[in-house]
């Protein structure tokens, strides 16, 4: 990867980290968006769309509720797309998925680190406001955003560098085995089916809507014939 590509990847890492929970939560950090963004930066838009969709399906069931800890799905999609952009991803699918999931865990750790640091900052803010410093919350927010951007950029660049360095090490092992693009597509669709089942089928109305979706999509697929998957 060239220096501009590494820098753009760092900027994307910062964006993904901040959007995930500290600022906005506009879902730029979801894999379905972060993957194509990374693909565009690395000159592999199709890989970005595909792996973004795969990791969106994998992390569909993870809820960012309250103080829960959860993997960083956006960072996973970034690292997965970086590995995919360096060669034939279907030829090293297991490795790609493994390093992307590891990056997701790293993202969980960096988020917890940032939140603990924020705890010390928040305690200081209270003291300064009590002393009459009304600008303290604003400065604390600016500092936390800057720190988050640095953490996100470092996590993206570091985990992508490790993932690319390890690519040669797994050659000839099952980790580098070809899973096939179609098989991966089917496995990811299966993940969507299972996540939707977990979330939405508890009530009778949900099961009826599920049946309706099945029948309508099945009918449309039959009507469209062999044009699928192109």
């Amino acid at each position: 990867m060239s220096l501009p590509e590494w820098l753009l990847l760092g900027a994307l890492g910062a964006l993904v980290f901040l959007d995930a929970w500290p600022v906005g939560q506009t879902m730029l950090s979801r894999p379905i968006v972060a993957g194509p963004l990374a693909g565009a930066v690395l000159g592999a838009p199709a890989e970005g769309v595909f792996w973004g969709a795969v990791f969106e399906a994998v992390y569909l069931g993870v809820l960012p509720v309250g103080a829960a800890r959860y993997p960083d799905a956006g960072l996973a999609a970034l690292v997965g797309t970086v590995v995919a952009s360096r060669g034939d991803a279907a030829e090293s699918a297991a490795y790609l998925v493994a390093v992307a999931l590891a990056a997701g865990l790293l993202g969980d750790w960096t988020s917890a680190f940032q939140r603990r640091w924020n705890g010390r900052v928040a305690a200081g803010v209270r003291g300064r406001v009590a002393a009459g410093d009304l600008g303290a919350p604003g400065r604390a927010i600016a500092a936390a955003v800057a720190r988050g951007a640095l953490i996100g950029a470092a996590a993206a660049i570091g985990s992508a560098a490790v993932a690319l360095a390890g690519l040669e090490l797994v050659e000839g092992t099952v980790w580098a085995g070809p899973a096939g693009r179609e098989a991966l597509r089917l496995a990811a669709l299966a993940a969507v089916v299972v996540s939707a089942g977990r979330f939405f089928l508890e009530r009778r109305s949900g099961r009826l809507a599920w049946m309706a979706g099945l029948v309508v999509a099945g009918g449309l697929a039959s009507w469209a014939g062999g044009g699928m998957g192109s």
Partner: protein
Amino acid sequence: MTGVPRSGPGERRMVALRSLFLQAVWNYETLQGVGFAWALLPGLRRLHPDPRKRAERLLAQLELFNSNPYLSTIAMGVVLRLEHEVARGVAGAEVRVGRLVGVLRGTLGALGDELFWAGWRPALGGAAATAALLGGGVWTACAYWLFYNALTQAVRLRGVTAGYASGAGIARVLQDPFWRRAAAATRLGGAAVGGAALALGIALGLSGGGGRGVGIFLGSVALLGLAARPLGSGGRRLSPALAFLALVILLSALTQASAGTSP
């Protein structure tokens, strides 16, 4: 409300924009407290010209706060309205602000989690992922992003005004059937996406590898479904990500084995 200037649309827009940073200093002690207090500052500046009084009221808002980020602006609007009473010197107003914020924390959090985190986001994400996996291009990501934010950011922007207009009567707004219906609608949409993904997976399997493709798809559904079931008496679940990794390794091994036996 005589003597104290009322909140204008510009101020409420500014509060809504500041709410984008609600979680910037999220921490395990006061959760969203710092972001919540900072978002309210434009209103506090108007209501409390005396810096000492403003610092006192800012400090009161720096306490623990946690809510769904998109709905938090409703609480901000309510606080702005009640702070008006504090500025006018109404007896007991300060206590009422703290008590109401405490109630709103839980209510808005539960509403938002059901509507956005467990409804709108997975339903839309499932639809976008399915479309992208079936060959949809970059437009799926754009559509996902636009649709998601059309609802969430609209709620965020209107929340301050809704909360300000209702004040202490916000309970009536939150009990409106609209919220329950909206959450139910997202759940139905998500369920329909799940059914559609099953049908489309089978169709894709048939068009790609015939019986083998359908076998891979249904086998994957069965394996991931089994992995999602609670394990043992503790009810723990295997991580969906780990289950997916195991599935990809299995698919790789099967592909290698079949390539090895091919002539």
